[in-house]
């Protein structure tokens, strides 16, 4: 529709309407112009004929008028030829000379006005078009009526006017149709840079920092818009880089003294205080670590052609965490798919996310039980423990920063699941928490399959939302 938000659609509609109007009005205007031009021609021709006839009038010796029409002219006005007729009337309306029989006037009701007057009369089943012209012969005033049979085969001009719509007027319609198509092509061509830009802009994801819109060969009208946007992206990237540098600096500034502290504390002989200090240092270190991971993940994106094998990642996670589980008297198992399950993803980040889930599960599952990491070929990873499970009322909170069920717990920083949620988000995946059959919690991450991603990047309109845990 013309009120559509699309410039192209609007242009097409308005252009279509304008062309329709022109297609209708132009033939009408042409018709009326052609008609008046034809009338004008007629009038001029009649006036010339009248003047010519007047030329043959001369004052007679008796004070009357003589009319001496040459024979070849007389032939022209003859009834047998049937095209022209004339009559010459005096001031009183008396017919002095005429081409008609019975000394008849051509237009008997003529008012004999001082200016030329035109008339149209039926004439032997035909139409006669004529005019009455005042002429001065010496001191006498006469009116010369001349007429022409419009139906005569030699009178072409009126036929053209009459047949205008049929023969000429329709030509505007195909022309307008062609113009419509040509205009559409022109609009498309003119808007092409804009359309191209939109297409490129659509592929930008919110965390893609190094992306700029191309500014070469841009129309002058939209160049400032694109430049402004690129400038905004520059500032954004700079901000991100500053933040990243800051985080790296903070990391360094915090970790080295922590390492010194740790080494000093480790050098103390065992005792209540030493153990407490070790736990404190561990906890501060973990918080610093995870905060830095979160800061690093703020600017994290999965590049479009990066793929990862979920099966392999899960296998690596289980391999790396099995010693921890076994040391705690617990067990761990990898179940489900044994062949590669490929998704679009960053292997390291996924390793981190799944590790966090599995570490949590190992912490919460009771001694003597098994944590299961299951891989579904439909790109789903499930981590199941035999612990107390997560109450429904808390499932929405667990992904929040620093959220801990047990505030006194020293093992948890409350950031592990936030990291998981952020990585899940970056992969356009969803995470849900549920109850395991026979007690315990199940965390499931469902990834888009490789095919879904291809379709998504074509549509790719909405930036991925913060993951809201789908509660099952």
């Amino acid at each position, binding site marked *: 529709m013309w009120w559509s938000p699309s410039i192209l659609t609007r242009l097409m509609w308005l252009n279509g309407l304008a062309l329709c109007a022109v297609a209708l009005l132009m033939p009408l205007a042409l018709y009326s112009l052609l008609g008046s031009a034809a009338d004008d021609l007629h009038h001029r021709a009649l006036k010339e004929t009248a003047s010519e006839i007047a030329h043959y009038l001369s004052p007679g010796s008796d004070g009357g008028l003589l009319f001496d029409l040459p024979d070849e002219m007389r032939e022209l006005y003859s009834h047998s030829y049937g095209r022209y007729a004339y009559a010459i009337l005096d001031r009183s309306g008396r017919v002095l000379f005429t081409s008609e029989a019975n000394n008849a006037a051509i237009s008997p009701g003529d008012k004999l006005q001082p200016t030329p007057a035109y008339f149209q009369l039926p004439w032997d089943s035909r139409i006669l078009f004529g005019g009455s012209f005042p002429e001065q012969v010496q001191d006498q005033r006469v009116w010369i009526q001349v007429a022409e049979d419009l139906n005569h085969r030699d009178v072409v001009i009126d036929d053209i006017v009459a047949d205008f719509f049929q023969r000429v007027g329709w030509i505007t319609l195909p022309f307008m149709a062609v113009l419509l198509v040509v205009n559409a092509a022109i609009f498309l061509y003119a808007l092409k840079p804009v359309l191209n830009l939109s297409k490129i802009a659509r592929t930008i994801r919110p965390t893609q920092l190094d992306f700029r819109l191309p500014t070469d060969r841009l129309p002058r009208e939209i160049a400032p818009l694109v430049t402004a946007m690129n400038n905004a992206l520059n500032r954004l990237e700079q901000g991100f880089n500053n933040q990243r540098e800051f985080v790296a600096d903070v*990391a*360094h500034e915090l970790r080295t003294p922590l390492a010194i502290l740790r080494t000093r504390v*480790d050098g103390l002989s065992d005792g209540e205080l030493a153990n407490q200090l070790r736990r404190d240092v561990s906890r501060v270190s973990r918080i610093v670590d995870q905060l830095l991971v979160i800061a690093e993940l703020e600017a994290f994106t999965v590049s479009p052609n990066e793929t990862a094998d979920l099966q392999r990642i899960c296998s690596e996670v289980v391999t790396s965490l099995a010693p921890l589980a076994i040391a705690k008297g617990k067990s761990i198992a990898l179940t489900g798919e*044994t062949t590669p399950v490929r998704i679009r993803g960053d292997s390291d980040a996924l390793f981190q996310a799944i590790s966090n889930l599995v570490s949590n599960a190992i912490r919460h599952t009771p001694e003597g039980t098994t944590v299961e990491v299951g891989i579904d070929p439909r790109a789903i990873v499930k981590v199941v423990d035999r612990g107390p499970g997560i109450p429904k009322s808390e499932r929405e909170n667990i992904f929040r920063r620093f959220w801990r069920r047990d505030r006194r717990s020293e093992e948890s920083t409350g950031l592990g699941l936030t990291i998981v949620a952020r990585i899940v988000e970056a992969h356009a995946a969803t995470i849900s928490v549920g109850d395991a059959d026979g007690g315990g919690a199940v965390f499931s991450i469902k990834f888009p399959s490789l095919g879904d991603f291809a379709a998504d990047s074509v549509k790719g309109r909405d930036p991925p939302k913060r993951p809201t845990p789908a509660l099952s």
Partner: protein
Amino acid sequence: MSALQATLLLIEDNRELSGLLVQTLTASGYVVDTATTASQAAEALGKRRYSAAVLDLGLPDRDGLSLLRDMRKQSDPTPVLVLTARGGVQDRIKGLRGGADDYLAKPFETEELIARLEALLRRQGNLVERVVRCGRVAFDSESRQVTFGGRSMVLPPRESTLLEILMRHIGRVVPKRQVEDQLFGVVQPVGSNAVEVYVHRLRKLLADAGAGLEIHTVRGVGYLLGETK
């Protein structure tokens, strides 16, 4: 252990941390040289052969990673344990790709540093170390003889191979595939529970001998040998 004679090069620019680490490592029986810059480190590495190097990535004169790459370019085989304050995921990858043998983020537990160093040295000595010891068990890879707390015996070939693999990776998961390949060869197709049969037999042997070692099954992944608690 052979670690008693091991010489280490500690490349760390923070003198305080460096000093503390020297104390700790020396207490663990290592001979430690220190360097605070990359150029000092390069010089030291040129002068003598170290059993291993501990490399901090944040050095004042040059990035530790570039020093590491140079070492590898000059085919210096010294095992390198990278220490870093950065500790991001990306950094870990860069470190390992740059030729590091292991990676430890600051801050770290002293015990872990020592455990990793030992593992690094053990891995390095894999080919030459004839006798592997875990708990009360010693395995002589040449004579294929197993000693359980002083009592020697010879195990059937597959059980003995399995025990050796597990002992060489004690505390870590050995993938089932790797065990299969080493027990049966890569070409010979085996039933899915063929390995399980030998694991079962070895478990019984270890239990009967009171070896103090236990084989844990990590279902879907592999096996882990641990000391019985």
